[in-house]
């Protein structure tokens, strides 16, 4: 490695935000043709480091080198001009524009008088889309795509320029397995062309599948760099969180109670049809399926956000109508939604207020909000979920993605619901917290809660569920118990093959 020069080298980077030292002398380099993983717990500083590289944040100290040359990234434009492509953790798309315009955002091909060269644009885009093997075309409006497909549009941006370095910040957070395969092909192609790739992810299996080296950050500090081939999950985890992780599968089995929630022949227009299932108290039911399978829509219906066109919902045997989330909450249902920033949090509000929002009417001292009670609720769940924040006064918008997610989970746990629905609960969450959350879900069930877990990660559903509902295209294909389920049968069911019913 001594004679090959790194494409990129960051040295001793320091970055502080008010009250937070997000990066504390971090060094990091990427070789040409290398896939270099950047790992660390939520809030460790991964995204911040990459934003410094991408010119979005200016570092308070340290230097960036490209090849031999020391560079200053004054802004995204400059970073891009230097061949650095950034695939963001949070979707960074203009929904009203077409796929083509989004992929070439900021560098639309021009003709005379500043006109857009539509023909070239479309041709180039189609070529890229073909490589990505997606079902939409250059003219599709991005807002009409599913989240996963929008992520594919982001990824397509990596292929537009002759990149020297590409940064993927949790690109797979909302992708399903099929799309991941495509993504990994893209990465392999880039790698062959000698591009240096930085890959941020919390998913160990991916890291071990595609990366060459792993750099670990903890609390903004550099922990070390490992050769992927010479290490293992346990070692990486240890470096990340400073302790070992208990990864035992689906630990406690306990007595199940009555049926807490039952759904019979539920349909909602064309979103999903004739869905039936039940959850007992004390049980965790996993919902697994491909993108667009309709799981989120079912959850939204159960939370009073959609009106079903047919079917019945029974809570503890009683037929109920849920007209609003307030209704659902009153009847003991909680939903941790899929889109944390859009649906889960008021970003400009502080941590405490976000967490107690659904119960603010009940936390009263006279006519006023009982702030002391709020703070103790916050403290309790901060400790329980290990939320990293300078204090309850911090604006949620300033927390790292994973810690934000924990605030949402804490918010709903503190409601002590009888039915808890979690939609992609660990999207963007580090391994340590992830296993905490899994344990939490199991222990909640053990305490008698009925839990529904929607997830696009097979290990996750397998790990936490007592039973698994496999969905395909708005229909329930099959329900597995944890004893009978195998990876193969599950994949078959969610692909519309070999289920009980025809699709």
């Amino acid at each position, binding site marked *: 490695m001594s004679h090959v020069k790194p494409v990129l080298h960051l040295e001793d980077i320091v970055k*502080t935000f*008010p*009250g937070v030292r997000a990066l504390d002398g971090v060094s990091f380099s990427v070789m040409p043709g290398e896939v270099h993983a950047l790992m660390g717990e939520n809030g460790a500083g991964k995204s911040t480091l990459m934003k410094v590289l991408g010119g979005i944040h200016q570092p308070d100290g340290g230097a960036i080198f490209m090849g031999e040359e020391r560079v200053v990234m004054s*802004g*995204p*434009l400059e970073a891009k001009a230097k061949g650095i492509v950034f695939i963001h953790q949070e979707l960074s798309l203009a929904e009203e524009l077409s796929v083509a315009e989004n992929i070439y955002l900021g560098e639309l091909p021009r003709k005379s008088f500043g006109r857009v060269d539509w023909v070239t644009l479309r041709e180039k885009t189609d070529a890229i889309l073909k490589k990505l093997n997606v079902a939409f075309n250059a003219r599709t409006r991005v807002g009409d795509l599913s989240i996963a497909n929008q992520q594919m549009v982001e990824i397509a941006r990596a292929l537009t320029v002759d990149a020297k370095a590409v940064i993927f910040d949790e690109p797979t957070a909302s992708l399903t397995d099929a799309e991941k395969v495509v993504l990994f092909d893209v990465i392999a192609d880039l790698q062959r062309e000698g591009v240096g790739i930085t890959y941020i992810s919390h998913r160990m299996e991916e890291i071990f599948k595609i990366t060459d080296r792993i750099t670990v950050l903890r609390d903004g500090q550099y922990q070390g760099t490992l050769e992927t081939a010479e290490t293992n999950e346990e070692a990486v985890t240890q470096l990340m969180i400073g302790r070992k992780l208990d990864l035992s599968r689906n630990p406690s089995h306990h007595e199940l109670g009555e049926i807490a929630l039952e759904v019979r022949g539920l349909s909602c227009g064309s979103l999903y049809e004739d869905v039936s299932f039940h959850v007992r108290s004390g049980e965790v039911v996993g919902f697994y399926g491909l993108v667009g399978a309709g799981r989120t829509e079912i959850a939204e219906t159960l*939370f009073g*956000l959609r009106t079903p066109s047919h079917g019945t919902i029974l809570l503890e045997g009683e037929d109920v109508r849920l007209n*609003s*989330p*307030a209704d*659902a*909450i009153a009847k003991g249902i909680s*939903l941790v*939604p899929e889109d944390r920033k*859009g*649906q*889960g*949090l*008021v*970003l*400009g*509000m502080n941590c405490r*207020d976000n967490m107690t*929002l*659904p119960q*603010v*009417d009940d*936390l*009263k001292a006279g*006519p*006023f*909000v009982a702030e002391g009670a709020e703070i103790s609720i916050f403290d309790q769940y901060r400790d329980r979920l290990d939320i990293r924040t300078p204090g309850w006064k911090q604006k949620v918008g300033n927390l790292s993605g994973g810690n934000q997610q924990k605030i949402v989970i804490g*918010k709903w746990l503190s409601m002590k619901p009888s039915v808890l629905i979690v939609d992609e609960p660990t999207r963007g969450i580090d391994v340590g917290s992830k296993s905490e959350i899994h344990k939490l879900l199991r222990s909640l069930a053990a305490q008698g809660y009925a839990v529904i877990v929607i997830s696009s990660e097979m290990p996750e559903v397998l790990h936490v569920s007592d039973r698994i509902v496999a969905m395909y295209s708005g229909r329930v294909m099959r329900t597995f118990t944890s004893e009978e389920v195998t990876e193969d049968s599950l994949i078959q069911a969610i692909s519309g093959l070999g289920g009980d019913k025809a699709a």
Partner: protein
Amino acid sequence: MVTVSRREIGSMLAKQGILIAFALFMIGFTLANAKFLSVDNVFSVVRSSAILGVMALGVTFVVISGNLDLSVGSMMSFSTIVVLDLHDKIGPALAIPAMFAMTLCLGAFIGFLVGYLRLNSLIVTLGMLSAIHGLTLTYSGGQNMDIADKEGTWFSVFGQGAILGVPTPILMFLSLAALLGLVLAKTPFGRKVYAVGGNGTAATFSGIKRARTVFTCYLISAGCVAVAGLIQASRSLGSQNTVGQGLELEVLAAVILGGASLMGGVGTIFKTVIGVLILGFIQNGLLLLGLPFYFQFVVTWIIIILAVWLDIAAKRGKLWSPIA
């Protein structure tokens, strides 16, 4: 550690920036004209700001909930005309509740359109600005409305009375500010207003009844307008159909000066009060300096931009915006 504490000083400054600006302002004008800070003048400014101020309190709720209210000016004309008309017809004791009821109906209508039907508040209240003006003209037949017996009515107490030497409009403004300030800062409802304005979708996902919250904000706004109309009517015991015309923008300017964000979710009653006072004292100060009225326009322009700019500059820790 040093940087952190310096930042804290910075953010203290940012939080109190509007107060500091206010203080500088008052000192400047006082140096220019000694009468500026005389008790008489201060009372007179605060008293005439009270009407604008009371309306600004309500609009603060609307703005924090993420909406606008451009109808308050013409609604205030409506309340004033109605209460004056009813004063002679059914007596002040009934006229006042009747006027409140009618004004609240208008507020409820807007609240229904914006809250429940989710129509855009800028356009809805713009439409209502015009429609209520039409309504007022129809109601009054376009005539001035004057109380017949101006000397003999106790109705004048709201606009012209005083308790312990403090004019009632000032007392009403400040006590309403205190009350609404508590509601906004300390009650569950206030919390919901911030949540709905900060992220309406997330608020809904948290079980907050967004429509009802927005609706209530418009009711509060209309209630404030009714109080303003009451003070106005009582102050001159007679009125034209256009008393409130144009006030909507002044009110909005005051709320913005106070640091409320038009995106919703940000703002406080206390700062709105400061914003109101700043506007009132600018107008008055420039008049005392004998400058033509249009200087007031130019100065207000500069003050608004400077105040909001410094406010956000302090928050982001940089004077110039990072926009490339």
